């Protein structure tokens, strides 16, 4: 793959997935904006590096989410964090991220970040509107179990957010 082809492929990918991947970072890092930006940058870098190796054996979304989840899991371990300069600055963040006005969104993000890793993953993927089959392919769970697991995860999240609702 030539550098031009790689850039074209990444461009198409970026247009389709930038917001989805960004939201996944929010679920990993809660309301720690600096961490969200660092993780988002790390995920894009991993995908940029891995893109020439993508042969289409899986759906692009499954492949991308999988890399993003693995990067997020590794990111939560301080030891694997690399100290690279931040290329995505605070000024690049959307206005609502620089000054989050919506308190409910902040509470939702904090609640999701406090969930168990497996619950957090299922909740985030369903919030993105993915089907059970897609969630199963990404998370590695059995498709039949997704519904039950999601129901339990939602109940736990609901319990966590209940004090803020009133």
């Amino acid at each position, binding site marked *: 793959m030539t550098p031009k082809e790689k*850039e074209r492929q*990444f*461009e198409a990918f*970026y*247009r389709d997935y930038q*917001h989805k*991947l*960004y*939201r996944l970072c929010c679920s990993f890092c809660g309301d720690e904006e600096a961490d969200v*930006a660092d993780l*988002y*940058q790390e995920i*894009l*870098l*991993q995908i*940029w*590096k*891995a893109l020439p*190796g993508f042969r289409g*054996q*899986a759906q692009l979304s499954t*492949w991308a989410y*999988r*890399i993003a989840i*693995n*990067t997020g*899991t*590794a990111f*939560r*371990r*301080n*030891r*694997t964090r690399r100290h*690279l*300069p931040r*290329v*995505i600055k605070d000024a*690049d963040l*959307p206005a*609502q*991220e620089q000054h989050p006005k*919506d308190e*409910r*969104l902040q509470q*939702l993000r904090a609640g999701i970040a406090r969930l168990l*890793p*497996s619950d957090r993953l299922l909740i985030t993927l369903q*919030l*993105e*509107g993915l089907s059970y089959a897609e969630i199963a392919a990404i*998370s*590695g*769970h*059995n498709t039949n*179990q997704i519904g039950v697991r999601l129901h339990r995860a*939602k*109940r736990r*999240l*609901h319990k966590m957010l209940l004090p803020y*609702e009133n």
Partner: protein
Amino acid sequence: MKTDWKNWSQLWQQQNAPDLSPNEIIERLNRLGTSARRQRRWLVLTFSITAITLLSMGLIWGGIWTSAGIGLMLFAMGMILYQAFSSPLQVVDEIAQFDQQQFLKRQIKALEQGRRLASRYMWIYAVLLTLGLNLTYLDALSALYTSWRIAISLVVSLTLLSAFAYSISRYLSRLDQELGPLVNQLKAWQSN
């Protein structure tokens, strides 16, 4: 709860990524790649320069034993440096990428191996450092009586090894706290 979920979903979808054009992000990613490469090159360069300088100084002012000792210590440092740069958790696994069970199995194995290696390499480092230090003593303490040389060598070696034993046990317990939950999480995913 149904209404809640609908609201949460709408709220969640409101979050948008930084407003950067693809070209801009590609340019920044390229810059990041260059920066990471530069960091690695700089580290290799400074390490090599330090190694050459120390070895030359050892040969000029010390002797063959001092140089051998310094060489051994530098080898140990290089070994630890290599370990520090290789992360046991691969985020992109070429072979098992599309088989989740296989992928998790490999990750768990890599993490558990990482813990064992960390312990083993740190002990090898401790022994090589002590050995290197003792080799430099052959030159540095050559003017002293043999009994003094043995005493100094023993005291320094034992102190060094005790300090290493303490820090290795602390490091491993910290590593267990970090890796333990991660391995458990991967194992829980694997069993589903």
